[in-house]
């Protein structure tokens, strides 16, 4: 039994065995997660349940259900690996079946927040172990020997004393008649016994992808299907007044032009719009210019980037807002400090821009809606359908498709509602809604911009003795907008005695949302850059300053449901990256230097060093070193390293390619990859990854490798040039 088991287990776990049609064992587990387990991971939700499904056919084929959406993070492969490991089968025997949405059957089905691995690590393995135990028991009956005399390996059962052996498939039907064991008491393997977990496993869909097979939401094809665009107001928050559809209706291939009134909730609801439905998507798109629509854009007046900036600076100048956290007496300590420094930082709104533009396919007939949705949160999609369109959950069938990237964008289900509204207007006709890239850039749930005014006091001995941050974010004055909240546990909170975190809010009509490492991706840039300034002022460097602040190994409880912070794990990744990057042995040259940053997010500890050079205002990144601790075990190293490299390059692109979404009266000024650029191959540096293995259960990797790379880069730019980057994206004077 693993030490982490008791906390994660619940007595109400249900394990059901049945005979497969055609023979064989089907085993399903439904495991409620106790609130304590979720709280330990910094989650509020208390009703979550997890499921695992595994079956073994008479021919030995093992089928494992992938219940969560696959958006490129690799869970469709890594979660079944956990089941297969404890089942002790050969990976080549395993088939994976993608589940539809069915909360009663599958419990939680979502992708986001790097939560799949920590939540499923134990239940998946226990289910595999329970199936194995039943197969062993069945073989014991068959051979009339004690179960303890039977060994398993690679999907076979062995009785060494008599030299007999059986394949799993040969006893699977017999096992189906047995009572399943207690989930909490099935023995689990020791890590040194793993044969699948920890080995590089190629993604389950990879072969189909390289052959160009239909696998993504956008590839859904139904007989008689038509293609749609959905034109929304040019400005965020705009409402439909009236639409003249005649000219668009006469456009080639157009079958329907449908003005659609939303439910008045442009955030999580259905936005007003006009759908054009045609025989070919390009024909629908061509007809768009023929639409004559009158919009009411008054709500967005004044919602411009320049006005937001002016309001933020005014709030900082006025010392407005309220305290989020006040430890000790930072004002007094600041006044008494031998040295004081202050600086303002800011970063812009940015878009997700997953490569597969938003799309969804639906058919409505006989009062029932069938949806094929590349979404990260199908359950929320179902709730939204009921709220916005009055569709009862039992009137909806939702199929999960592979999604061409998520990064948090597909946590939102706006496209699901739009296609449902269109499909309901043309009963019996299957419709595929596809957004143009321009639609996608202009109607995102953006990572919100933010402003920080930092102050720090340093003692005569070079110690950080006072710290404050006045954060200006977006919100209604009481609650920050989605993904616009501060993290009151952010270092150096908890590491020094006298600290203040203060917050003011600016209202916005722009929709905001979680982008890969939400909160952290921006907060880390600002705070680790300013701490680098503190380190310079204190006569040291950032890794040494951080080690000094972290002090002895201990656990610091998180505030406001934030996860527990282990200073020892933080120390270990910092020390490791200092070694791998030869931090102490490098001296900055003119124009080329290394920079460092550390961050703790989504339960992962990451320290990163960037080697960058600057010539004529252009930045080149030569190499990045990453040290990360996500627990005792890397489930699939092939997927894990890809997540880290992707996160690092993603972060570099946020800083270096000029990514910024800007508004004029609520109208987004960017439109496509020419003015919202993404990383391209020439900018991808060599990336060295070192895993620091702690004795904690494994946690997720979709997000935590991203935040530190941005300040590590900007700190390198400072060392190389003396130019301090206090605003993203990076713009240097030549």
């Amino acid at each position, binding site marked *: 039994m693993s030490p982490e088991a008791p906390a994660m287990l619940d007595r109400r776990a249900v394990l059901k065995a049945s005979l497969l049609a055609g023979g064989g064992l089907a085993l399903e587990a439904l495991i409620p997660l106790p609130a304590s387990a979720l709280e330990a991971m910094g989650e509020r939700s208390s009703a979550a349940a997890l499921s695992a499904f595994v079956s073994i056919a008479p021919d030995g084929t093992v089928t494992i259900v992938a219940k969560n959406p696959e*958006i*490129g*993070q*690799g869970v469709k492969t890594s979660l079944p690996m956990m089941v297969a490991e404890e089942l002790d089968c050969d990976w080549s025997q395993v088939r994976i079946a993608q589940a539809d949405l069915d909360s009663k059957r599958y419990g939680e089905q979502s992708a986001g927040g790097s939560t799949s691995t920590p939540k499923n690590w134990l239940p998946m393995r226990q289910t595999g172990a329970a199936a194995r135990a039943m197969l062993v028991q069945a073989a014991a009956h068959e051979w009339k020997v004690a179960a303890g005399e039977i060994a398993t390996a690679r999907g076979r059962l062995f009785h060494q004393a008599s030299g007999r052996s059986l394949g799993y498939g040969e006893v699977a039907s017999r096992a189906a008649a047995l009572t399943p064991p207690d989930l909490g008491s099935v023995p689990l393997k020791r890590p040194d016994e793993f044969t699948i977990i920890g080995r*590089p496993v*190629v*993604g389950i*869909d*990879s*072969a189909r*992808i*390289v*052959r*160009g*097979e*239909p*696998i*993504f939401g*956008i*590839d859904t*094809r139904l007989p008689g299907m038509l293609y749609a665009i959905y034109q929304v107001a040019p400005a965020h928050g705009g409402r439909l007044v009236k639409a003249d559809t005649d000219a668009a209706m006469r456009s080639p291939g157009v079958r329907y032009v449908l003005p659609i009134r939303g439910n008045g909730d442009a955030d999580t609801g259905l936005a007003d719009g006009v759908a054009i439905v045609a*025989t*070919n*998507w*390009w*024909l629908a*798109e061509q007809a768009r210019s023929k639409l004559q629509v009158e919009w009411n854009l008054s709500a967005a007046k004044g919602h411009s980037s320049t006005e937001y900036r002016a309001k933020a600076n005014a709030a900082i100048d006025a010392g407005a807002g309220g305290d989020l956290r006040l430890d000790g007496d930072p004002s007094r300590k600041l006044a008494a400090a031998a040295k004081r420094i202050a600086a303002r930082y800011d970063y812009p709104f940015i878009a997700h*821009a*997953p*490569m*597969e*533009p938003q799309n969804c396919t639906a058919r409505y007939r006989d009062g029932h809606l069938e949806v094929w949705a590349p979404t990260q949160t199908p359950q929320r999609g179902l709730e939204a359908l009921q709220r916005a369109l009055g569709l009862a959950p039992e009137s909806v069938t939702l199929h999960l498709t*592979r999604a*061409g*990237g*998520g990064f948090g964008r597909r946590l939102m289900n706006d496209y699901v509602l739009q296609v449902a509204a269109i499909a309901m207007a043309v009963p019996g006709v299957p419709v595929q809604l*596809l957004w*143009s*890239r321009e639609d996608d850039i202009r109607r995102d749930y953006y990572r919100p911009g933010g402003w920080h005014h930092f102050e720090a006091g340093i003692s005569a001995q070079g110690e950080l003795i006072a710290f404050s941050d006045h954060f200006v974010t977006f919100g209604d004055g009481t609650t920050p907008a989605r993904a616009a909240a501060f993290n009151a546990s952010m270092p150096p909170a908890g590491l020094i005695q006298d600290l203040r975190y203060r917050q003011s809010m600016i209202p916005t009509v722009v929709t905001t949302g979680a982008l890969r490492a939400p909160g952290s991706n921006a907060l880390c840039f600002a705070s680790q850059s300013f701490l680098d300034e503190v380190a310079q002022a204190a006569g040291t460097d950032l890794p040494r300053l951080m080690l000094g602040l972290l002090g002895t190994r201990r656990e610091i409880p998180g505030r406001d449901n934030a996860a527990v912070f282990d200073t020892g794990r933080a120390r270990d990744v910092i020390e490791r990256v200092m070694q791998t990057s030869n931090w102490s042995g490098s001296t900055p040259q003119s124009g080329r230097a290394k920079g460092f940053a550390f961050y703790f997010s989504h339960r992962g500890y990451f320290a990163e060093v960037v080697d960058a050079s600057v010539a004529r205002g252009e930045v080149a990144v030569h190499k990045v070193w990453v040290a990360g601790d996500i627990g005792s075990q890397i489930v699939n190293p*092939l*997927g894990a*390293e*890809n*997540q880290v*490299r*992707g996160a690092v*390059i*993603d972060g570099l692109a946020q800083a270096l390619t000029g990514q910024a979404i800007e508004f004029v009266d609520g109208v987004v000024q960017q439109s*496509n*990859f*020419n003015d919202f650029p*993404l*990383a*391209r*191959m*020439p900018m*991808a540096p*060599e*990336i*060295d990854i070192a895993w620091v293995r702690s004795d904690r259960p494994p946690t997720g990797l979709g997000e935590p490798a991203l935040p530190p790379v941005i300040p590590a880069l900007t700190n390198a730019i400072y060392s190389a040039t003396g130019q301090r980057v206090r605003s993203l994206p990076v713009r240097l004077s030549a």
Partner: protein
Amino acid sequence: MRYRLHINGATRQVEVPAEMPLLWVLRNELGLVGTKYGCGKGFCGSCTVHVNGAARRSCQLPVGSVGDAQIHTIEHIGSTATGAKLQAAWLKIDVMQCGYCQAGQIMSACALLGQAARPSDEQINSAMAGNICRCACYNRIRSAIRIAAGMEEESGHVA
């Protein structure tokens, strides 16, 4: 307008406006959905196909301009020697994360190897710079091209 197109070794007939980009003929008229829409402006390379062996962005190629050219798409590329090597290399080191852009990446890589059997890093960077991978699998795309070209042994570790 009625067009006879030579696609993946077969002749296909479609009736569409001359200005319709080849991408939408492939995806919406012929059911060849392996070629992907990413930006519609030729910025991202997701829609890359081969026209007489050269990599072209099919979102920028009006069907009326295709004429008698031989079109090849990702669905066909595995039946060419270079395409099969690239697909095998892609799987050997599991290049992809979400996988959406990979058809376009493989088509660009295949055209590159047709021009330079042993491309330099600069040639790889330059030939592939038009293909965006939002998941940023660039290190592995580079390695997979080198593996397919016989320039790099798969070592289990990709830098």
